[in-house]
Every structure is written in structure tokens, then in C-alpha cells.
């Protein structure tokens, strides 16, 4: 029997759409879903005589991301033209960066399913303009929508450091969280803000000999699911193909495939890597970009603790679960709100629960961010303290939270108004317990008889106490008194 081991090797190209107000080289608004060809001007239409002007903000967003990826940032970069003919590319060249990308030699850390962390190398990061969209709605002609033309895209190219579909997905998710944290992209997959192109092949050891399968590039994936599944699919397909044909990697046998979502399979697009000659040359209409120390420092000052680091810190520092820490760090505004509240004195786990269980739900209903709900972290911290102190119950915190969002009032005031302050006064509770006991001799009998009935009866009595107090009794105190009275 022959011995066979294999490992899938994946490198990833990611296009991230930056969330600038205007396009990369003109003043047109970036707007998803607008009427076709309504967000265009002579510049992005590639009219004769027009000239591009660099969007400085886009450049800063790109450098900020490259810094977060721990890239080397050259002080001098330039723009190049990449030539190819396609109807969605009005100039028939794309302004991009060829030999001097704005960032190089970085890395990103991704969480592994096993719990560890893996470093993935970043080869380069560069800026370019997006093309438009060809619409094939009719049978005998196509239409072109150029609204997207000129959208700033950050292209990130990783080293082939990933070895499973799950790792590739983890990297994509981590990047999404990172760019959102940095505020450089909405990274909305539905709107195509992130697009992935994995390069995949296998390293196979068979009978002590090493083989590499031909590289396959999968084009234009725009969901994490498709990304992960396509890699896994390729892993199996390439193994089968190798065992069947023995074909190994050689010059020119890289192929391009697409992902068929319905069939859950990759499909061949281009048999042989066409000898693309993009005829790159320096863009003469734009001056090179020369960073100054001051400018770079200014960009660097916008960096923040990255989400994965923060997530790990929450687990250690606040003893949160990895899951909760992940939810809190999915978005920079949530995690900042959380930290403000903790700083205001709230117990981290308590504030975490308030935010992840109630806060996010309210924010989602209101279709806004945690920050835009109109409440201060300090007020939420106060609410957490009230729960902690037993002044209100955890379940009562939900209507109080909702009322805070609605009215903007402080939790103390609202708890009073809503009559949700818990009765913890032992003397008063004792009188109510006595009353309940006096009215329910059968239940007392059940309790003393022991067994299954006893537990049920205890619950019933506590329920009666709660009803008597209109839910305002502190259940902990009430059950203690009950237990004492029942011996």
C-alpha cells in the first residue's frame, strides 16, 4: 500500500472597497444601488482630455490599513497604468500601483479553531480604482453601469500561508473586522465591499516523493461561505485529479476557476493562464506620492488596538468567554462603548451581557450603532450596578434599557417610574411570605411531604410571593425567607 500525505496551500488576494465619500480620482459620490450611470462624471467616464486627481483620504485609509497589517510603508510610491480592454473599463487601463506598492512585507494574525493564533504573511497592499459593471440583461447586447468605476480598492496579497478552508475563512473574517475597526471600509459582503481570489494547490507526499499540483485561482468570491467551501472543494478535487492523472505544477498550467454557488463546486473558466501583458508603465497624469514623517505620524495616530488583540485581552483581563469577547470586538464602537462603561465602574461580565443580549438587539431594531442609541456608557454602567446590587432584577433590566433608549432618562429614575425596584426589605417580605403561607396550607403540606411534589410546591410559593409584590421582590431574599419559614 502506498503512503500518501497532503497539505493544501492557499494564498489570498483580497479587494477591500474603502468607504471614502468620493471616488479614487474624481469627486463622484460612492453610492451603492443608485440608478445606473447616475454617479459618474467626465473623469470616471474616461472622456477625452480628463485627468485624475488623487483622493488623499483614500490614500490615508490604505496606508492606515497597511500599518495595521504591519507592512513596511515606503515614503515614495507612484501610480501605474495597467492596460487591458474590457467594456466596463472606460479608459481601457486601470490606475493601480505596480512595482512600488504603498505597503509591503507585513503580516496578520488569525485565530485558529484549535484556540491558537497563526501569523499569515502579507506580501503587499496597494491602491487601485475599480471597474464598472457589465449588465447582461438582454440577449443580443449588453449594458455597462459605470457607477462603480473609480471606486477606491485596496488590494491585499497574502503569502501562501494558509492550509485549510477554515484558515482562509478566519483570515477573511479577521480582515473584515480589522478594516471595520479602522473605519476604512464598511466591509459589507452583500454590497461587494470585500472580494476574494484564493490561489490553491496541494503539496503531496507519496511514497516518499513530493509533488505539487497545478495552482488554481478562483475568481471573484464575495462571501465567507463560498470562500471556505471553494477551498475545501478544490482540496478534494485536486487530490482526486492528481491521483487520477499525476499532473503536477509546471510553467503555464495555472488555471482559473469560478465558484458555482448552486452546485457548490468550482468550474473551469480558463484552461491555461493566458499570457496577460498588462503593459504597466508609470501614470504620467499623476505625481508620485511622497509621504512626509508628519503625514505618516498623523496616519499612524489613527491606529488602535486591533480586534484580535483586544478580544484576547478581554478574555484575560475581564474573564469574558472567547465568544462574548468576539462579539464585543466585532465592531469598534461596541468595544469602545464597553470599555467606557467598564471604566465607569461596571462589572465587565454584567455590562457585556447588557450589551450583547439587549443592546445589540435594540440597536438592530433601531438600525443604528451602539453609539447612536442615545445613551451614555456611564448610564449603562449605572444600570449594571443596579442589577449587581440587587436593586432591580436582570429581567427588569430589559424594559429599563429600552426606556433609557426611548427617553434618555437615567436608569434609577426609570426603575422608579416603571416600579421595577426590587423589594429586598426582609421585614416587609417576611410579612408577605407569612400571608402567602397562611393562604396556602396545601402547598406547605406538599413541601413537608418531600419528593417531587415538594420542589414544585416551593416554586409555587415563591411565585405567589412574586405575584403579591408585583414582581418586585428580590427573588434571592424571598426564597431565603421562605426556606427559613418552611424549616
Amino acid at each position, binding site marked *: 500500500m502506498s503512503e500518501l500525505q497532503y497539505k493544501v496551500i492557499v494564498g489570498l488576494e483580497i479587494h477591500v472597497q474603502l468607504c471614502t465619500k468620493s471616488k479614487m480620482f474624481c469627486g463622484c459620490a460612492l453610492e451603492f444601488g443608485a440608478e445606473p450611470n447616475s454617479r459618474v462624471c*467626465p473623469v470616471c467616464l474616461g472622456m477625452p482630455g*480628463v*485627468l485624475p*486627481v488623487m483622493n488623499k483620504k483614500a490614500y490615508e485609509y490604505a496606508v492606515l490599513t497597511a500599518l495595521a497589517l504591519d507592512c513596511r510603508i515606503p515614503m515614495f510610491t507612484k501610480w501605474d497604468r495597467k492596460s487591458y*480592454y474590457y467594456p466596463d473599463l472606460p479608459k481601457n*487601463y486601470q490606475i493601480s500601483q505596480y512595482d512600488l506598492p504603498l505597503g509591503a512585507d507585513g503580516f496578520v494574525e488569525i485565530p485558529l479553531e484549535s484556540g491558537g493564533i497563526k501569523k499569515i504573511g502579507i506580501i503587499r497592499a496597494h491602491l487601485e480604482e475599480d471597474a464598472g459593471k457589465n449588465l447582461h440583461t438582454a440577449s443580443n447586447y449588453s449594458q455597462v453601469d459605470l457607477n462603480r468605476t473609480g471606486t477606491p480598492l485596496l488590494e491585499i496579497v497574502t503569502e501562501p500561508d494558509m492550509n485549510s478552508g477554515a484558515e482562509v475563512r478566519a483570515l477573511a473574517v479577521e480582515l473584515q473586522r480589522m478594516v471595520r475597526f479602522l473605519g476604512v471600509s464598511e466591509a459589507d459582503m452583500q454590497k461587494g465591499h470585500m472580494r476574494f481570489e484564493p490561489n490553491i494547490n496541494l503539496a503531496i507526499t507519496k511514497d516518499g516523493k513530493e509533488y505539487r499540483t497545478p495552482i488554481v485561482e478562483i475568481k471573484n468570491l464575495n462571501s465567507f461561505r463560498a470562500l471556505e467551501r471553494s477551498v475545501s472543494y478544490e482540496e478534494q478535487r485536486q487530490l482526486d485529479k492528481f491521483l487520477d492523472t499525476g499532473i503536477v505544477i509546471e510553467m503555464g498550467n495555472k488555471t482559473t476557476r469560478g465558484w458555482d454557488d448552486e452546485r457548490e463546486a468550482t468550474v473551469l473558466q480558463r484552461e491555461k493562464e493566458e499570457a496577460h*501583458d498588462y*503593459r504597466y508603465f508609470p501614470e*504620467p*497624469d499623476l505625481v508620485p506620492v511622497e509621504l512626509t514623517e508628519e503625514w505618516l505620524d498623523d496616519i499612524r495616530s489613527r491606529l488602535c488596538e486591533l480586534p484580535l488583540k483586544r478580544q484576547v485581552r478581554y478574555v484575560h483581563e475581564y474573564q469574558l468567554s472567547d465568544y462574548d469577547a468576539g462579539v464585543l470586538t466585532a465592531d469598534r464602537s461596541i468595544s469602545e462603548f464597553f470599555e467606557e462603561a467598564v471604566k465607569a465602574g461596571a462589572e465587565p461580565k454584567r455590562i457585556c451581557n447588557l450589551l450583547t443580549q439587549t443592546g445589540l438587539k435594540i440597536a438592530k431594531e433601531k438600525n443604528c450603532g451602539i453609539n447612536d442609541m442615545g445613551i451614555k456608557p456611564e448610564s449603562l454602567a449605572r444600570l449594571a450596578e443596579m442589577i449587581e446590587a440587587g436593586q432591580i432584577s436582570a429581567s427588569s433590566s430589559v424594559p429599563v434599557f429600552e426606556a433609557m433608549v426611548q427617553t434618555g432618562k437615567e436608569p434609577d429614575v426609570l426603575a422608579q417610574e416603571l416600579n421595577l425596584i426590587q423589594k429586598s426589605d426582609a421585614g416587609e417580605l417576611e410579612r408577605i411570605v407569612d400571608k402567602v403561607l397562611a393562604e396556602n396550607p396545601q402547598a406547605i403540606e406538599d413541601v413537608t411531604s418531600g419528593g417531587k411534589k415538594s420542589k414544585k410546591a416551593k416554586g409555587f410559593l415563591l411565585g405567589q410571593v412574586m405575584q403579591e409584590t408585583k414582581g418586585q421582590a428580590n427573588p434571592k431574599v424571598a426564597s431565603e425567607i421562605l426556606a427559613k419559614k418552611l424549616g
Partner: protein
Amino acid sequence: MENLSAKELRDKIVAGQASSLDATKAVFERIRKFEPTIGAYISTFEEMALEVAADVDRRVAAGEPVGQLAGVPIAIKDNMCTTFGATTCASKILENFHAPYNATAVEKLLAADAVIIGKANLDEFAMGSSTENSGLKQTVNPWDTSRVPGGSSGGPAAAVSGRLCFAALGSDTGGSIRQPASFCGVVGLKPTYGRVSRYGLVAYGSSLDQIGPITQNVADTALMMNVIAGHDPADSTSIDETTAPVRDYLEKLDEPIEKLRIAIVPEFAAGADEQVQKALSEAIDLYMKLGAEITEIDMPHLDYAIAAYYIIATAEASSNLARYDGVHYGHRTENPADYVEVYSKSRAEAFGEEVKRRIMLGTYALSSGYYDAYYLKALKVRNLIRGNFTDAFEKCDCIMMPVAPTTAFKIGEKVDDPLQMYLSDIYTIAVNLAGVPGISIPCGFDEKNLPIGLQILAPTFAEDKLLRIARMFEKETGWHKKKPLLENE
């Protein structure tokens, strides 16, 4: 009236001594009479021009402020975008193209109350030295209608020379303002690269293209520069004014430069026709009489200028012209089999020979495996040429040389020999590679009564000085006042 210069006309209009409407009407009279012979214009806008002219007259009469070019009828080369009329670049591919915006230079003319009367002919996409490459019409030289007006701004130069306008805007990528100005006996300035916005100038060689005036005399060029020069946020390669402030080019125009140091490049100039050389040396003699000091210098890398130019310019052109593909605007082939045929057939049908030749040259130069040997090497040569100029300007205020090796040649004489045609730009091309300003002013006539131009080059952004040096010569000579006598005139 039509014998006034642009500035003289402007001054009279502003002073209420002349009417723009009369001047504009007079120009259109001449156009009706002589344009059929000269063929300077691709389009004219008589109705619009008369309206603008009448408005200027009304405002002058009402004592309202008017611009620096108030009421002056001006022609622009048809490779500058205008919202009025078509912007053809003398190409069938853009024959019916109407731009949705005005070039910055055009906006500035309009803001200065110029009366734009028409768009003038050129070699298709400004590629050529005789205007014979126009895909739309033939322009002839007003001094001898069997000869070319030069190119690629042949239309504007012929229009100014034939007094079918008072001044014009041309563009210069390798000599396209200076050489036709020389052939037609008028003044032409290529400003420093970055001095005038290129926004709206249909690109040929982006790193070389520059808009500039073509006028009857140096003062008119200074006036036009006062209007069109300056930073434009829409053109990243235009120079901001803190680096190089725009001067009032008229202010000290008549003040001669004291102790003027002129450099000449004898070895280089020796390639020109005898009569061109003679006119040059007579011009130098005159400057000497005016007190200038002459130094002979060597600019060893100028010999490689044409080779470098035809790689850089064509490489950029191959990319700049890629957008004319029949998809979004311009000529589209009928019944293409697929989208690739939309490209290949539309372009094959509508581009002229020379444009195709340059696109192919440039595509080749940028192709993988050839880039280093051609494009990269050409960039290195370009740097050496720049260095030659920097070195030279340490020793002199300006360099003088011929504009072209010959005077205007016969129509058809060089069309079948592109290399010979390319060589007619030998004195002008290096200037674009170096980015420095250069002017052509009339300095005599050959024995066939064809104008000869004197080329003066100055350091970057020294247009003010350059114009004053040119003016020193002009003041002492009458060459610029000689006008061609047109048939039936």
C-alpha cells in the same frame, strides 16, 4: 481692423474705440473669403461668436468690467474640449464627439471674455508635423498654398498667419506649436510643462503635452499667457503657484534683459538648411549688437532626443488612445460579431495611418520583455537631456537654435517617409523632454519668401524672461509685421 494685433484690438475695445462685433464680423468675412483656400478650421461658431462680441460691446458701453481678452476673436486647436461644437482631434473616431465639459484653458478664455470663433485643424490627435495627418481636412500654408502649414497645430498657425483670427491656442508635444508658428511666420510659445492646465486637452503624450498661444507678436503671447497660465486643481501635474508664481507677462515685456547671456549649440544647428542657419546667425548678430554675450555650448544628448521621444510619446499615446474603442462614445463599427470586434473594427476603421503607427510603436515599447530596453532606457535618456539643459542654463539665460531644419515643405513631400517627417522636429523635441519653455519668433525669410523661425529656450518657469528676450529682437525687426498676401487680397 483685421490688421490689429490681439492686444491692440483689446485695448481699443476696452477704450470704446473699436467694437468687438465689428472685429468679429470682419474675421468671419475673411473666413468666408479665404478659408476655402486655407482650410484652417474644422468648425466655426459665427452665431455664438457674434452674440459674445455684442455682449462685450454692451458691457463696455455700460461701463461694466470686462476681461483681459475682451472681445478678441480667438481660435482654438480642435483637441481641446468644448461644450460647444464637436471636439474631433481631426479624427474620424471623434468626428461627432461632443464633450460634456470645457477644457480649463477654454474656460479661462471664456472668463476673460474672449470670443471663441472656431476650432482649428491639426494632425490627427496632434500626431504629425504638417497637419497632413488630419483625418478631416487639409490645411495649407498662407505664404504658399502648395506647402504645409507645419504641424500639428497647423490650423491655428495658418489661421493666425492668414488673419482668420486674432490669436489662437495650440498644443505642443514635440514642437507642435513652435514648428507651425515658424512655418507660418507667427509667434508660438510652448510654456513650461505644468504652467498651463492640461485638463480638457485631449492627451497624446501626457508627460510632454502643453497648451500654448500662437499669436501675431510677442505681446499677444504675453497677454494670452496672462489668461491661461496658472495652477489647476484638476491637473495634478500643473504647478502650484507657491512653487512658481504666475507673473504678469506684459508688465516688463518691453524692458530688455541686461547683460543677456545667450548660448548656441553650433554642432547641433549645423544640421539645418543653409538659409535657416544664415537667419539664425543674423539674429545672433543682432542680439550681440544689443549687448548680448554669446557662448558656444555642447549638448551631447540632444542627438538621442528623437529616439527617446518616439518611444515615450508613443508609449503614452498607445495608452491614452486606448479609450477610443467604440464602446462608450465616438465611431463604432456596424454589426460587430462580438465585443472584441467592436474594438478592433471601430479602431481599424476610424484611426488614420500615423495614429495606428504610433499606437503600435508604443504598444510594442511597453510590452513585456521590451519595457527595459525601450521605455526605461528612453526615460534615462530623457533624464540626461534634462541634465544637459540644467547644465546649460547655469552658463546662460537662454539657448538659441533653429525651430526646424527647413522652411515649410511641399504638401505630400514627406508623407510617404515618416522617418524624414519625424526628423523635422529635431530642434523642438528635446524641449518637451526637458519640460522647459521655448518660443518661436519670426526671424527672416528664405529665398522662396517662406518664413523662418528663431527658437529661444529658457529655464523652467522663466516665461517672463523668455518673452522679454524675444521682445528685444522683435522690437528691432519687422519680420513679425510681414503678412502673407492671400489670393484675391
